[in-house]
């Protein structure tokens, strides 16, 4: 055991030396990826979803045959501009902290008479979720360029942040992963993808500020809920329930950490 330990130390040292010498290779590939991203930055297919979402926002739907135009996203009924930059937040009418998607479910229920459970149970990219995704694209585009400004002044917001922080570090599953396994240190990559350190303001802004996004690899627009869902899938966790407090808490932790950063949504991601 003692010998193993010493050996571990020695190899650790060697490894440190080597990673210094090999960082130039990594740099080249990272630069090339940056160039690639620049080339596709113009012409984000999110625009196609955004246009569809605007129509869905204005169009009467659901058992009550009403539009979402009176939906209160935190800045008052019908105010969409800038609303996403301040979510999640506490809502008095539901006595809950809600993220954009859980809040939209509330509006769909109250204004349109739609059953939130149908939304929760629907698979991503299909049925009612397809509408949700387009509406989200529309709403977040209207905060593009705004400063992320999330409050933890309300005790429930503060509590949600603390719960989210704890969930962020919660390890489980057969690979012992937590969110922090990949997003807790500066300057790390998984394969060629940079991993923002979400425990810092800068890293959180790079993560939170660019989602929802159009995902090039799947050719789909992903909401934050879907992004989180796939993180947990890759963490080998069970399936996080759409709009659950857990997902809102994690979002609260990321969003609050990102405060002061710029909303760049919808992003364009690998």
């Amino acid at each position, binding site marked *: 055991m003692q010998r193993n330990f010493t050996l571990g130390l020695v190899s650790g040292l*060697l490894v440190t030396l080597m990673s210094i010498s090999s960082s130039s290779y990594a740099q080249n590939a990272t630069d090339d990826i940056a160039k690639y991203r620049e080339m596709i930055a113009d012409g984000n297919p999110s625009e196609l979803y955004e246009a569809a979402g605007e129509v869905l926002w204005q169009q009467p739907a659901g058992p009550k045959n009403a539009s979402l135009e009176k939906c209160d996203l935190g800045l008052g009924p019908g105010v969409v501009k800038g609303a996403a930059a301040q979510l999640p937040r506490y809502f008095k009418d539901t006595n809950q902290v809600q993220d954009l998607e859980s809040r939209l479910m509330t509006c769909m229920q109250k204004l349109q008479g739609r059953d939130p459970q149908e939304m929760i149970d629907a698979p991503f990219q299909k049925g009612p979720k397809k509408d949700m995704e387009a509406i989200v694209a529309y709403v977040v585009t209207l905060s593009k360029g705004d400063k992320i400004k999330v409050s933890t002044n309300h005790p429930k917001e503060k509590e949600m942040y603390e719960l989210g922080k*704890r969930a962020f*570090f*919660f*390890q489980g599953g057969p690979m012992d992963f*937590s969110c922090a396994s990949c997003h807790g240190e500066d300057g790390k990559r998984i394969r060629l993808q940079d991993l923002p350190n979400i425990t810092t303001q800068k890293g959180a802004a790079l993560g939170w500020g660019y989602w929802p996004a159009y995902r090039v690899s799947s050719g789909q627009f992903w909401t934050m809920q879907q992004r989180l869902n796939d993180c947990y899938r890759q963490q*080998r966790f*069970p399936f996080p329930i759409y709009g659950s407090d857990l997902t809102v808490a994690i979002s609260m932790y990321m969003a609050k950490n990102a405060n002061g950063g710029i909303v760049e949504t919808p992003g364009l991601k690998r």
Partner: protein
Amino acid sequence: MTMKNMKSLLALSIFAVAAFVIQGSVSAQQANNPKFNKMMKDGFRADGIAGLDRIDQDATQKFCSDPVFAGSKQGEKMREQIQKVNMNSIKQPSDGKYIGDWKKGEAIAQSGRGATWTDKADTPIGGGCYNCHQIDKKEISYGTIGPTLWNYGKLRGYSPEVITYTWNRVNNSKAYNACSNMPRFAHFKLLNEQQLQDVMALLLDPDSPVNQ
């Protein structure tokens, strides 16, 4: 995937932790929070092979979920205890063979698949090694969460000590670093003995491209 193995280690570790508590030598980890527990319990549902037992933490996971305590002076004894428990769970190869086929090892290192709710119980689980490590330099798409493993054997040599250390490390990295980011491949049966031997070969076969 069953969590049987996890459960036995959990039992073992609870015993270890209990022993410490009785001795009174460990200051508390983050407090149990019923609200948090409920949020986690209500936040997930089982899907396919990903059951809710996956959020039942064993002692290692619980300890490492509190990085402030885990990295503290007060956490030191528990850290050593957890490393010991993990070290004791490592089995040396039943056939005495440490080095398999590096070509198969490379394929295992490349694959990051398996064990998610979209996988089946019989989906082969990859090692996902390139997600975090540079290994063969020809693969430019590698992660940097772990150290580079290029020239692993060439730099360290092929002595029995190096081989045993590496075997232990790929089996259960937490034997050396309680909160290493590396999965416990043998403990959770992510890779079988044969696959572990193949990954070993990628690192420690002098003919492996890693050592050229």
